[in-house]
């Protein structure tokens, strides 16, 4: 069955902050409801903790810079790996992720290598 990565884009929140407990509970509800199709996932710390790595050509100098590659209002805050029959099913599940109404969810088909 095809797999899809559902990337959550929301305000750049610190999910570890106790103030976010109510929202985290909503995500827990989604995880319970979608348990049969979720193959993985993670919540990310805010973009303030990010480091962007660039290398000046293969084997070249490594340049680490603070922060995400691009500053946007909505940041990548987490993801789920879903296994669904087709895109329609994946989109139906994505619509139930709380990020879909607090921000947006990008659904990307996962390429199968070497199958």
């Amino acid at each position, binding site marked *: 069955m*095809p797999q899809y990565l559902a990337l959550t884009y929301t305000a750049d929140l610190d999910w570890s902050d106790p103030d976010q407990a109510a929202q985290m509970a909503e995500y827990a509800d989604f995880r319970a409801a979608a348990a049969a199709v979720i193959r993985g996932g993670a919540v990310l710390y805010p973009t303030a903790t990010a480091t962007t790595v660039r290398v000046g050509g293969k084997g070249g100098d490594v340049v680490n810079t603070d922060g995400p590659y691009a500053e946007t209002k909505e940041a990548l805050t987490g993801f789920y790996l879903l296994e669904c*029959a*087709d*895109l*329609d099913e994946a*989109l139906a599940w994505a619509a139930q992720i709380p990020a879909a109404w607090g921000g947006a969810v990008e659904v990307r*088909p996962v*390429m199968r290598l070497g199958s």
Partner: protein
Amino acid sequence: MSRFTADLLGALTRDESTRILATLIRLTGDITLAEDALQDAMVKALTTWDSRGIPDHPRAWVIVTARRCAVDRIRREARRTDKEASAMALFDEREDPPESVVRDDLLRLVFTCCHPSLSLDARVALSLKTLGGLSTPEVAGALLVPEATMAKRLTRTKQKIAQAHIPYRVPADAELPGRLPAVLATVYLIFNEGYAASGGDLAVRSDLVDEAIRLARLLCELMPDEASVLGLLALLLLQDSRRAARVGQAGELVLLADQDRSGWDGEKIVEGVRLVGKALQRSPDRPDSYTVQAAIAACHALAPSYVDTDWSAIASWYDVLLTVTDTPVVRPG
């Protein structure tokens, strides 16, 4: 090639190739492969029919030949086992598929080409190609896009359908309200591109207008109980009934008030008005925006002159339109 063969093949291409293609896509699970196989079969028909005569059942001949061509192509390209499996499915189904299956195949094709996860531009291009049966250069020409750009757009669209696994299936009744607007908007945009030509030298591009009406008719055949589908066809017919009177001798647009109403197409008006009635009957409480716009167009179409138009009826329809336009009516960009 004899003239007769060419004419017959031409008619077959227009009327039947969409149906054959829809079935081939289901059997092969691959739009490009199905298109190529159908193309192969048409080429074979040209040479075979010319030397051996036209078969008793040209359509069945093309279907069987296209399937063989698809199998040939799969074998030639067979690298993956799932492709071998689809070749077997093609062999299993030797009979001409029954009408109900062809109907469902066409619906599958409609809803796949007009899937909401595809951009409107992509939907328009793919619908003209697969449902309309136009070649890539024809689609490019109709939409005034360079051929290379159009070829790329079509390839990317088909890639997304394959890679994201957009399903080839008829939506359940409960899903229809969510899925139908994307289909109707696609056809309406094709019509508007022709009717209010945004590019090119002509005020009206008849090829696109005709194509949109053909697609709207196909939708009516496939979904005769959907009020919005009837409303869309009614709207297109009523607007198009003014085609001849809408453009002046110098190619300029003539306003409604100044049009010679004897130049309006009475047949289209009759059909359009009948369809508005049917659509309103099916959605008395909350007509969709296409049906309401068609009702407004019908008021104009039935008026003997501009001054004798039932303006109060039109005004009330506009009030209704305001209440139902939460479904976006797509305007050409």
